[in-house]
């Protein structure tokens, strides 16, 4: 499963290591976050299905630090049965686990009158079911050791079902609810579960057909800084950027009889 045999530098009292996993690491926010966490001193297992971009990312980061900070692991999150073995392998290679981040996500922008179950299924599989497959393995580990942080990168799109993309809204709403459930189960055991809700991030997503016009969009680096900040401060739920908190506060509270007549 690992592309190369990992050889992380060994931890010692004077060289302590924080250990993390990022699932969906080679995407826009994933790559920026990998760099951000490597800079913060983490050693990371980077999981993705895209071998080429993943390896390239790892090589770049490791070259910057002249030591192994990140190791690539190939995995397709929709291959749910492979998650337990993959996680066990990663935890053994890292020598433990302090932080788990799920950032894998896909989006398809349908036309306003388009109903595409194939694409909806893909979104639910990657955005929600893959996350559940991994997190249902991570949760008992953290529960047992009574520490750890789980970060799910959901979306503001999960806050409301909207005219534009019911399938995507569903996948993210499900993910947000799943994370909230985990939080309620695990906080009492010392585990911190963070829901990240990015608004718009300037990644390839915004170049897809039918993609909306960027509004309050941030760069992947800014998003990564925001996520790192949430991890550092052990937050519960964070909108990125902050303006989306106010925006979504309004949108969440628009009564249905108005909202169903609107085009947002």
């Amino acid at each position: 499963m690992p592309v190369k045999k990992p050889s992380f530098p060994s931890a010692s009292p004077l060289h302590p290591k924080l250990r993390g996993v990022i699932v969906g690491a080679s995407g826009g926010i994933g790559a920026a976050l990998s760099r951000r966490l490597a800079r913060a001193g983490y050693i990371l297992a980077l999981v993705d299905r895209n071998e080429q971009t993943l390896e390239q990312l790892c090589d770049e980061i490791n070259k910057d630090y002249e030591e192994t900070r990140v190791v690539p692991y190939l995995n397709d999150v929709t291959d749910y049965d492979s998650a337990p073995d993959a996680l066990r392998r990663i935890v053994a290679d890292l020598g433990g686990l302090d932080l788990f981040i799920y950032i894998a996500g896909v989006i398809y922008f349908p036309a306003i009158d388009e109903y595409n179950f194939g694409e909806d299924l893909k979104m639910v599989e990657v955005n929600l079911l893959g996350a559940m497959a991994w997190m249902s393995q991570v949760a008992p580990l953290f529960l047992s050791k009574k520490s750890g942080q789980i970060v799910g990168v959901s979306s503001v799109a999960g806050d409301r079902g909207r005219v534009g993309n019911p399938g995507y809204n569903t996948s993210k709403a499900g993910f947000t609810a799943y994370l909230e459930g985990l939080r309620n189960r695990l906080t009492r055991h010392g585990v911190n579960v963070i829901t990240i809700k990015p608004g718009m991030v300037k990644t390839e997503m915004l170049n897809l057909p039918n993609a909306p016009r960027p509004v309050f969009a941030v760069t992947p680096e800014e998003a990564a800084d925001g996520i790192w900040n949430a991890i550092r401060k052990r937050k519960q739920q964070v909108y990125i950027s902050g303006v989306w908190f106010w925006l979504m506060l309004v949108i969440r509270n628009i009564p249905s009889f108005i909202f169903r007549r609107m085009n947002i």
Partner: protein
Amino acid sequence: MILSLESQRINMSTPKLERNFFSLQNFGHSLTAPSYVFKPKRAEEIVGAFELARKNGLTVTARGAGRSYNDASLNGGGIVLDLSGMNRIIKWDPVTGRVTAEPGVTLQQLWQSIEPEGWWPPVVSGTMFTTLGGCLGANIHGKNNFRMGPIGEHVIEFTAILPTGAEVTCSPNKNADLFYAMISGLGMLGIFTSITMQMKKIESGLLEVHAWPAHNLREHLAFLLEKAPSFDYTVGWMDTMNGGKSLGRGQIHAANYLHGDEDPNPQKTMKLENQILPPRIFGVFPKSILYVFMKPFANNIGWWGVNVAKYVASLREHTFRQSHAAFHFLLDYVPNWELSYGRGGLIQYQSFLPKETAEDAWREMLTISLKRGMPSYLGVTKRHRPDKFLLTHALDGFSLALDFKVTNGNRVKLSEMLQEFDKIVLQAGGRFYFAKNSETTAETTCAFLGDETIAKFKKLKKRCDPNGLLESDLYRRVFES
């Protein structure tokens, strides 16, 4: 010779890995490694754990009391077998002084069961909470290393389970190569399941202890050199916080067993209640919470005061009698003392140096540590002699153990300093101890053990553990990275 346990294997229901994932720490609380922890009660369960590891592509480490200062009993992300549940004394013969025990038996359990009958473990560590399995794995020494050698020299026979599932019995005459490698072998060849040892006869519950002040490093080492051959136990305390002319000053304690005729009432002094460490200080202050009050003093100024006060108190040359437990288990006087070092915990740096080069090397090291404002808070010296065990740390010379407090602010500086220390020690022909130092690299290990020893050890490892199932964080650090 090598029995297979295949036939008598008890079918363990596959334990749930995820439910047994616990964060383990080293004794100094300076490392955390989450692992799948299992607590076997019988030898068969160890075989089961090896199978579980093989099936899941994981590695296994044995852990006793977890009293090592470093990563010897940690295996981050792997399986840790907590052997403290295998803690039965199987056979004890008060006539011959032979004891057979499981590896999880602690020194405390051992001495408390044999002392009232006039016996004492031949070699003990500075704490009584270590387990026999751990003691053998690290081949520990005591304050009598020069006279009695390491604990391994008092082992008559042991049985161990190899990762292949085979059971092997070793003694100095039977499977001698494994005997001398598994003792000192850091649990990397197999896991002890029963250990037979010879105890030491005592005629009194007391030791006669002599104390001399040493005014500088030269005098300190000269004392150790002079006293070690003629006393049963010799140990030095070094004030590591004062330099200049008095660098290396301290106090030497040397003790002898009392003979029956020297103790007016040996029956009484050998009673267990006369060996127990008092639970209160000055009769009122409970020791169990003392570490909390030590916390504010666990800094350069606080420990400087302690060192100076201790030195002043030690200036009087005197002789006194002390119980065995009180003399040996100094580290147990203040329970949880290691917690007083705060969140970063502590590390110990122990170096073993030939008697010819020790003075210059330690002078240099202590001067560096004082100059950089990172003095050790506690220094302990001992006299040593070489032994026959494969991964031995001993030599004809001395050891100096230094405790350092770890903080977020000093990690980088401390690490640099210890790397310099490593160079000084290697240059002086010194050695290191795998139960103590946490920063020793593979390169340093290779330099002091020698390629030949390492090749021999790895060959034995290949034979005992062909699939490389036994691995600890320590093993990966000193033999692989």
